[in-house]
């Protein structure tokens, strides 16, 4: 009986995961990537030389509101080079992959990992986060790697910094590292955040140069044909 349950668990987990996320995405309609499109618009604004933030918002929950820290921008810029639809689907694939890699990274037994995959497929918060194109699955990956590398300062510091660069709240992990005297992790995390902050400045110019180069190459090719 136990053997049967052990064999059935991965099958049930995959069924639950694929049907749960698949149904959420299939039923999404116009709300597919609702939150991601705010990130996409922010990246497009930045690439167009406009401010990162649209200051016209007065309340949360509306479409297009981007209120993440500027340090999240470098991670989003590549998506700004794609059309909204392509970027949304790419982001959804990245999100699901990030979650599954995160599950694989969890320092728990294989059967518990399968249980987490099974439960994720049933979990409304998970399938909803995927449908909206939220950052949750990416944060899950960062938190999972940090958990796995608790006693390896570089891994903990870097993943803590990635979390804090995306959203303010996960920065609490770096405070935790500080309070538990994981000094190296704190320094690595702080340096990584500084690099991310510096890239916000540089990437604006860099990404614009990439867009200009791609556009010039394409137009040259079109003229040649």
């Amino acid at each position, binding site marked *: 009986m136990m053997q049967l349950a052990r064999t059935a668990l991965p099958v049930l987990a995959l069924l639950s995961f694929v049907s749960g996320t698949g149904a959420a995405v299939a039923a999404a309609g116009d709300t597919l990537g609702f939150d991601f499109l705010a990130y996409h618009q922010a990246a497009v604004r930045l690439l167009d030389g406009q401010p990162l933030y649209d200051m016209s*918002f007065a309340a949360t929950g509306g479409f297009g509101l981007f209120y993440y820290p500027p340090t999240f921008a470098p991670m989003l810029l590549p998506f700004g080079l794609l059309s909204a639809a392509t970027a949304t689907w790419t982001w959804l694939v990245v999100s699901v992959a990030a979650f599954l890699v995160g599950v694989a990274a969890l320092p728990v037994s294989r059967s518990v990992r399968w249980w987490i995959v099974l439960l994720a497929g049933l*979990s409304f*918060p998970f399938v909803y986060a995927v449908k909206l194109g939220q950052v949750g699955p990416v944060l899950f990956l960062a938190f999972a790697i940090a958990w796995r590398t608790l006693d390896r300062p570089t891994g903990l510091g870097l993943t803590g910094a990635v979390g804090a660069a995306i959203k303010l709240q996960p920065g609490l992990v770096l405070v935790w590292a500080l309070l538990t005297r994981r000094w190296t992790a704190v320094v690595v995390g702080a340096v990584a955040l500084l690099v991310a902050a510096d890239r916000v400045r540089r990437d604006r110019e860099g990404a614009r140069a990439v867009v200009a180069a791609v556009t010039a190459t394409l137009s040259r090719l079109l003229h040649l044909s």
Partner: protein
Amino acid sequence: ALLGLAALATILVGPSAWTDFLTLLRTVSEPITTEHNFTPGAVAYQLGVPAATASLVQLVSTVGVIGIFLAAIRLATGEASYLVTVVASQLVSPIVWDHYAMLLLLPVAYLLSAGRWWAVAVPLVTAWPLVGVTPPVVYPIVFWVTLVATFMVGRAARDPRTNLSEVYAS
């Protein structure tokens, strides 16, 4: 040290992006009255509690979360106190959307590993087949239950006594 680094980051990024960010946060922040917010205070407000009292509920919750965060660092295993931090990082936020609860799968994995199989109930009570049935108040409850359970299991794991009731009876 962190404040110093934050100041350095501000200089590197350039002031405008950060000031825009803070202005935007200030503009859009009415957390207690924000619709679909699942913090304890906001859910209390949705249940008819006056805004001032709901703000107090939120304050008490935040102070409690910080207390457990600090207690876990002192009393629980490193693994458990880290996972308490993960849950706390969401619970101290003035805005908690329902999808933030997906991060509870991390402490759930920890609790399952520690043999607490009841933890499967944490994602199951917020399962998508129950949408429309699960009341909003369930969200702050599952956040809090997971926070406290992770702390208690982590504290017991650090204690030479193996029985949870023995640890908490003392």
